[in-house]
């Protein structure tokens, strides 16, 4: 019956903006985070209703799972910033605020609302304009369908992402790589060495879920060739395994060699870039695979990218470069000099 689904869509369409508004308006950070996790879930359902299972899959893994864990852990760190540190961090801003007289505040409010309304109106106009410009024949879908046979995969989305518009994905992978580099260059991750006993429930949960997550990540990359799935979805699930291990603070995490993590981080971008260069050198265009072997190339690139995306997202969650292994700890020498040494060793 179409009616029930119609109501379903209406409820989704009403709940989504309401939820977004409540989460932005919430004065309580924690509540806003929980609302954000719920928004991720409703968002995934919405993508399903919009016939975009690939995006729904990514939203399920990133929006509802990873970002939730990231926010919840970040909240604790925010709370742990002592009052003194917070005052220090916001000192400049607060002084500035104090100088603004209250009447200017009162005048600023209508201006801000007016600007917001203006922006909204422009956005709606642009949306209407682009809708009017869209050709009635279903956009680029038929064109992709015609060329699908040459792409090496059976999924239209994967064909576009990895073959027809491969350089977009190449750049995306690079952006993620740069983000991880940025985080790694800022600080070293501080894993608590002495942790409380994780408890049998958490230990079992990690033992059950982490291997399954890695398996499902592989499954998603594999299935990406024929239907929804692919490197980003697989990588996100892989990262979830990493985040779970980091949360439970199991010993394995501390024992992963930093060099392995660095290679894992670089594997996808390196292979992608190498493929692009080889394709150009062989006389073709950038990322123009030989049509007979396109499927194999795409699977290879996707697998490597999934590993790198997984390591990248987990590294972004951890919030720093790998900690110094205890074996290489030369002791005594503290401070920036030691950091620089360790980095030089790791980058060889």
């Amino acid at each position, binding site marked *: 019956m179409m009616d029930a689904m119609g109501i379903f869509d209406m409820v989704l369409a009403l709940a989504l903006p309401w939820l977004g508004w409540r989460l932005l308006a919430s004065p309580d950070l924690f509540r806003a985070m929980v609302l954000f996790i719920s928004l991720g879930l409703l968002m995934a359902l919405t993508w399903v209703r919009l016939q975009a299972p690939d995006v729904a899959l990514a939203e399920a893994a990133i929006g509802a799972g990873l970002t939730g864990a990231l926010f919840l852990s970040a909240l604790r760190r925010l709370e742990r910033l002592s009052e003194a540190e917070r005052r220090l961090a916001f000192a400049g801003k607060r002084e500035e605020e104090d100088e603004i007289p209250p009447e200017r505040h009162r005048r600023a409010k209508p201006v801000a609302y007016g600007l917001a309304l203006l922006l909204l109106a422009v956005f709606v106009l642009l949306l209407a304009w682009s809708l009017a410009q869209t050709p009635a024949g279903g956009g680029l879908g038929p064109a992709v369908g015609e060329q699908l046979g040459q792409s090496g995969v059976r999924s239209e989305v994967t064909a576009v992402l990895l073959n027809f518009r491969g350089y977009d994905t190449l750049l995306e992978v690079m952006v993620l790589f740069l983000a991880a580099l940025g985080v790694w260059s800022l600080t070293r991750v501080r894993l608590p060495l002495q942790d409380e006993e994780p*408890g049998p*429930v*958490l230990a*079992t*949960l990690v033992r059950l*879920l982490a291997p*399954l997550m890695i398996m499902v990540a592989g499954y998603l990359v594999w299935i990406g060739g024929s239907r929804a799935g692919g490197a980003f979805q697989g990588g996100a699930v892989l990262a979830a395994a990493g985040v779970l291990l980091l949360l439970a603070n199991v010993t394995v995490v501390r024992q992963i060699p930093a060099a392995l993590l660095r290679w894992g981080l670089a594997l996808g971008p390196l292979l992608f870039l190498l493929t692009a260069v080889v394709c150009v050198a062989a006389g073709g265009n950038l990322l123009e695979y030989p049509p007979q072997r396109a499927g194999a190339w795409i699977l290879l690139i996707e697998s490597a990218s999934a590993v790198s995306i997984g390591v990248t997202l987990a590294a972004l969650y951890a919030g720093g470069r790998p900690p110094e292994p205890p074996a290489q700890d030369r002791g005594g020498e503290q401070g920036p000099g030691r950091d620089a040494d360790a980095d030089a060793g790791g980058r060889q």
Partner: protein
Amino acid sequence: MGLLHNLGTVCILLGIPFFISGTIGLLRFPDIYTRLHALTKADNVGLGFVVLGLSLQADGWHTVARLLLIWLLVLIASSASCHLVARAALRKKIEPWSRP
């Protein structure tokens, strides 16, 4: 086929009241510990009925296996997170509710 299909439909429809009672429990129960019951018990039974009903209507064994795996994962996730949240609440010295 027809009988199994109808049985499956009955199971699916049986599951829905469990979800609804879970939500009512979440809204009406007095404290965190009782709400934990509402969620982790009622909802998983509801999902169990839905999974059972869908399995009865499934086309092949691989679909049934996947449905069962999903149910099992949800069971593991909700029981473990129920335990962790309850333990954290006890450590926060939140008093369990008792009839006044």
